[in-house]
Every structure is written in C-alpha cells, then in structure tokens.
C-alpha cells in the first residue's frame, strides 16, 4: 500500500515535470484551403501560405521584413554586364524522399517553370532567362537575355521554389521539398499536417509538428481561437474582434504590413471609365479613412498609388486623390455626367471588399454615381471579373510583392493601356543600379496616380492572433507565407 502511494506520487511528479516542458506542436488556423499542393503551378496564395519556406525553398528567399537572402544558393556572382548569374549551391541538401538536391534539380525546376507549356502562375518571373546550365553538381549558371535588376528577388517567390524530377508527378498531393518540415498528411476540407525534417541542412525547426487547420467562417475562426483549439491564426478575417484578443492576456495580436494594395479596380476600357476625368472624379469621391475605419476597424494605411508604403521607394500621392466630393461632382459635370451614371460593383468575399464596397457605394451615391452591388464567390469573381473583364468596378487586394508592372499589361483585368508606362517598365528591367531603379519606380507610381487608373484605397494590414507564449511568428507578410521554421513555445 505504501509503495503504491509512492508510485502514484512519482507518476504525479513526472506528469508535473512534463507539463513544464515547452510544447513542440502547433495548430495554425487559416481561412483558405489550398486547391492542391504544387506552388509552381497555381496562383492560389493558400498553397504558399502552407508550404513556402516550411516545405519548399528556392535559390533565394524572403525574410519577414521583405529582404531577400540566400536560400538553397549559398552565394552567387553576377557578371559585369548583369546577364550571367553563377549560383553556388549549398552542399549536402537532400529532398524529403532522400534524393540529393543538386544543380540538375535547379536546372529542372527553372526550365520547367519557363517552358512553353508551363502551368506556372508567374511565368513573367522567368521570362528573361535565356539558358540554365548545371556546371557541376554545386554550381548553376543562369544566363539572361537582358539584365534584370530584380532577378534575385524573382527567385525568392514561392513560384520559383526548387522541386525534384523524381517526385514531380505526385507533387499536388505529396509535395517533396527541401525545407525544415516534411509534408505528412492532408485531410481535405479540414487540415494539413507537417512534421519536422530531421535531416534538414540548416538550423532545424524547433517544432516537431505543425497542423494547418482551415476555418473559412470568421465567427468560427473567432470561436476556435477563443477556445484555444487553434494556437495561432494567420490572416485573421475579422478585424472587429482583435480588440477582444488584445484585452485578453492569453493572446497576442500581431499587426504587420503586407504587400496587399487594396484598390477599387476600374475597368479602364468600359465607358464612362475610359474618360480620365470620370476616373479622377471617382478618386475624389472616396473617403479612404472612412473605409479603413468602417471596413477594417482602423487597420490599414491609406495609399495614393499602387505601391507598398513600407517600401523605401514609396511616394505618398494620397494628396492627388484627396476626398473632395464637390470637386468630384464638378469633374463629373465636365466629363458630361452632371447627373452621374450607373455602374456595377462586383465584390469578392473578404470583408475589406464586402464592407468596403457598401461604404464606397454610399460615397459614390453622394456624388451621383449609382452602383449595383453583386457579391461573388472567388471562382465566380475570377471568371467574371478577372478573366471575363465583365465589370465596372470591383475591390480587391493585390498581395503580390512589387507588382506595379501589372500596369504594363494592357490585357490585365483593369485594361490600362499606356505605352509610356510600358516603356517605363522596360527601362526598369534594363536598369540595375539602385538609384536609377528607384527614380523609375517613383516615376511609375506617379504616372498611374495621375492617370487615376484605379481608386487607391489602403495597404492591407497583416493581422494575426496567437497564443501569448508563441514566439517567432512573422508579423509582416512580405509574401504569402506562414514561416514556422523559427517558431517555438516559450516555457
């Protein structure tokens, strides 16, 4: 009897001691589930949100502040004329299936991405590549058709990660990368699990296991975090709930920057928006602060052009489109619409669009522009608006980093066709010195702001909620990623 008691006490002591150890697993909530798991063949950001840096790595990579650092390439040399990049790869890197990662895999990945029949969603990243040669197993030489100042930046994208020819066929269900985590299990409609990769070449992950749980409904997301069913929620969908988390000592709220320029996209080819006066009137009818306060509960930074405010080359052009309904009415009258007009406003699901849309509709109504609001789900939005260009106005956040070059594509969904701007982007690609690039970027920002291509609303804030004991989460979202490689639980 005595001994049994002693045994029980020992068990209890062991349990208590065990509880003091830091947790090594994490459940991360996320709103959107990936359609499949190949980041190199789909535009869906949800794929990168799960896999970027965790499972897949590229030659270079983004850090949380947006800087580009060496990834699988340890170092590189750039030729005098800026057209030949010689990458020195890290040695001893293996894929999760045990095969080694060498120059042939890099050549395979880049050639596959830029091939004629490639499914890559960002083929423009690879457009300047002329040839890729595997010099020896640890050296890759990439020759460009022309100098490209953003080539190293391009290689850091999730669309440019290194994949292996051995495992490419099953990548959509069974992704095999080189990262600090290995893909383990996907329960479709519910969760994706990844586990620590014991053979990782770099600093090993501090967590043993991570689960991404997909919760699309904002109310359910709130409940899941409150009940501590999920330990962190990346990209929390309901900003109105954040003050409650902030007031609760169990949680920390991370507010960072994203690359998401949230804009009132305008169909530049559809009358009356083909008239710059009408677009200018639109810009002056919008009260940005009311939209940020009403739709995002104050989270967001006003922008006056398609550029991220935290970027050193950003120019504050919000003054060009200051809120001035009287000026807006005057411009409409000059453009031949003294009584306004009616147009469509098609809104995708996020609350910045749905709520922002209602506010913008009210603001436009005040200057005489009537809008017919249609709420669309993402697939419908992509079909009707993005591909079909069947819309007058829409609201969407462009989350790709440094994407001002989309204005050089006349067939892009807002159909802005300005040869001067297109030339500017060609010049940008041909310029490698930082001062010259900065000047061109500033000029480009001003050009689209003065053409009032779209209504520039605000920079989306990165809003995450996590257990107060979790350290190492990214506050910013320089790219679509939930990098867990440096995440750990504090004791």
């Amino acid at each position, binding site marked *: 009897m005595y001994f049994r008691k002693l045994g029980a006490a020992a068990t209890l002591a062991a349990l208590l001691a065990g509880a003091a150890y830091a947790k090594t697993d994490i459940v991360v909530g996320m709103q959107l589930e990936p359609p499949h798991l190949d980041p190199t063949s789909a535009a869906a950001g949800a794929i990168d949100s799960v896999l970027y840096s965790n499972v897949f790595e590229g030659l270079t990579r983004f850090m949380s502040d947006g800087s580009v650092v060496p990834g699988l390439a340890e170092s590189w040399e750039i030729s005098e004329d800026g057209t030949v990049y010689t990458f020195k790869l890290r040695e001893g890197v293996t894929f999760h299936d045990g095969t080694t990662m060498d120059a042939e895999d890099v050549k395979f990945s880049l050639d596959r991405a830029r091939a004629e029949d490639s499914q890559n969603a960002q083929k423009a990243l690879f457009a300047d590549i002329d040839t890729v040669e595997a010099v020896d197993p640890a050296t890759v030489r990439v020759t460009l058709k022309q100098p490209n100042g953003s080539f190293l930046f391009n290689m850091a994208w999730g669309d440019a990660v290194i994949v292996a020819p051995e495992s490419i066929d099953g990548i959509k269900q069974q992704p095999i990368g080189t990262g600090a985590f290995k893909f383990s299990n996907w329960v479709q409609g519910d969760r994706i699990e990844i586990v620590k990769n014991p053979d990782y070449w770099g600093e090993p992950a501090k967590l043993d296991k991570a689960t991404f749980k997909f919760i699309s409904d*904002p*109310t359910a997301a*709130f409940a899941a975090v409150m009940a501590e069913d999920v330990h962190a929620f990346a990209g929390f969908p*309901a900003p*109105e*709930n954040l*003050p*409650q988390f902030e007031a609760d000592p169990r949680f920390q709220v991370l507010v960072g920057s994203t690359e998401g320029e949230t804009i009132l996209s305008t169909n530049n080819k559809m009358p009356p928006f083909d008239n710059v006066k009408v677009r200018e009137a639109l810009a002056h009818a919008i009260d940005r602060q*009311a939209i940020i*306060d*009403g739709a995002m509960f104050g989270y967001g930074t006003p922008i006056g052009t398609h550029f991220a405010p935290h970027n050193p080359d950003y120019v504050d052009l919000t003054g060009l489109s200051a809120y001035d309904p009287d000026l807006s009415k005057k411009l409409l009258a000059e453009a031949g619409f003294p009584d306004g007009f009616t147009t469509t406003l098609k809104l995708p699901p996020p609350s910045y669009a749905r*709520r922002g*849309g*209602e*506010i913008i*509709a*009210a603001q436009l*109504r005040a200057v005489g522009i009537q809008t*017919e*609001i*249609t*709420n669309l789900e993402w697939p419908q939005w992509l079909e009707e608006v993005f591909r079909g260009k069947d819309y007058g106005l829409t609201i969407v956040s462009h989350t790709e980093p440094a994407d001002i070059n989309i204005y050089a594509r006349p067939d892009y969904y807002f159909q802005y066709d300005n040869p001067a701007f297109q030339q500017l982007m060609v010049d940008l690609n041909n310029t490698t010195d930082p001062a010259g690039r900065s000047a061109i970027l500033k000029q480009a920002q001003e050009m689209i702001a003065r053409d009032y291509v779209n209504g520039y609303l605000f920079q989306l804030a990165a809003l995450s909620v996590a257990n107060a004991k979790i350290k190492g989460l990214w506050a910013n979202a320089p790219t679509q990623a939930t990098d867990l490689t440096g995440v750990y639980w504090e004791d």
Partner: protein
Amino acid sequence: MNRNLVLGAGLTAIFLLAALLSFAWVPQDVTQMDIANKIKPPSAAHPLGTDHFGRDILSMIMVGARTSIAVALVAVGIGMGLGVPLGLAAAARRGGWLDEVIMRANDLVFAFPSLLIAIMITAVFGASALNAIIAIGIFNIPVFARLTRSGALSLWTRDFVLAARVAGKGAARISFEHILPNVTNLLIVQGTIQFSLGILAEAGLSYVGLGAQPPTPSWGRMLADSQTMVSFAPHMALFPGLAILLTVLGLNLMGDGLRDVLDPRLRRDRQ
C-alpha cells in the same frame, strides 16, 4: 373577442405601420453612413443603437420591415394566385388525369425542402429581392393548391353544388361562384401562416446573402452583418432578431385566432 387574434393582429400592425411610416419618415436616412458613430449602444439619439457603418438600427428595422413584408406578401400572392386555381381545377376534375397531373406536380415540389429550392433558384438566377420573391412564391403554390382541393372536394358533394349543376352551370363557373367563396376562410388562415413563413424565408435567404442586396436594408442581412460582433455589440443582433421573432409570432397568433373565429366547426364546438 379572441385573445390570440388581438395580440397577433396588434404585433403585426406595429410592423406594418412601421413599414408604412418608413416611406414618409425615418429617424435617420439608412443610406447615410456615419462611420465615426459606428457600433454605438442604444441612446437617446439612436433608441436601438447604431450598426457597424453608424446607421441607425431603428431606421434600418423600419425600412427592413418594408423588404420583409413586400417579399412575403408578393410570395403569398404568387402562391395563392397560382395555387388556388390549380386546386379548384384538380377538385373539379377529381379522379381525372388533370387532377393526377396537378397533384403529382405538387408532390414533386413538396418533395424538396422549401428553403433548399429557394437557395437553388437564387443561386442559379442570381441573388436579388425579386428572385427571393419568386423562390418563396413557388413553394407556396402546392400549399394552396392542396388546401383548396381538399376543401373543394367535400363541397362538390353538397346539395347546393348539385343544384348549380342541375341549373346547367359548368365546372369552372361552379368552382368560382360556389366553391371558392366557401374555401376563403381556409385560405385566409393559411395565407397568414404562409405570410409568416415567407418573412422567415426572406430573412434566411438574406442571412446567407441570397436575398435583397445592399444597400437595401433587410433583417436577415442585419443579423449576418452582426454575427462577428455579437460578443461586444449584442444590440446589433438583438433588435433585428426581435423584429423577426415578433413579426412571425404575431402572424402565427393571428392565424390561430382567425382559425378560431372563422372555422364554423371550431365555433360550434365552443358553443
């Protein structure tokens, strides 16, 4: 005087009057947003508080009543307008092929849950108040067709119908001149119940975003908008929720009361 009828009619009248009044006057224009005053609890300036865009919730409920009542009323109109003639025709040709066709078609519509049909219709033809009306109207048709037919069947065996036939009146004339007036009581009672179901259906469709589109205020969408804010702004969900509850309760009580008053069998039982 029937207590249910008075209470029900009173509740219904409040919302009808609020809807009518909203055409002439509301405390605050519902298209006017006032972001600086968003999510304010009830106060003297805003008796029911303000919503997430700073709009006055009392005004929203008044204008929203318009949407609910209009949708439900027209939907019941569609159901009666089509269902009653179908029911009369089926009863007039009882046992014939027309009866079979009409009643089996009704069974087919009945076989689907009503809200599911409504969601399907609005999903296919787009979300709008008009499509919500059509969707809710369609599942009202078999309700009225069935009710009219069953009421009419027993009437067709009565002596006064026989007399009309002997006098040479055709089936259509008998149906409208003798049968229809005698099923009106049934229709009024059922109409009241269907009206309350229509309001509930409209709120449900708007809640999932398939009813009236913004900026038209609607009780269901007010509830949906308040969903993530319930934990810190319960008034945003409470008042539109109460509006739906009280209107539906009022109409149901009124329906019960009307049945008590109008149904001759029940009347005799009481005496």
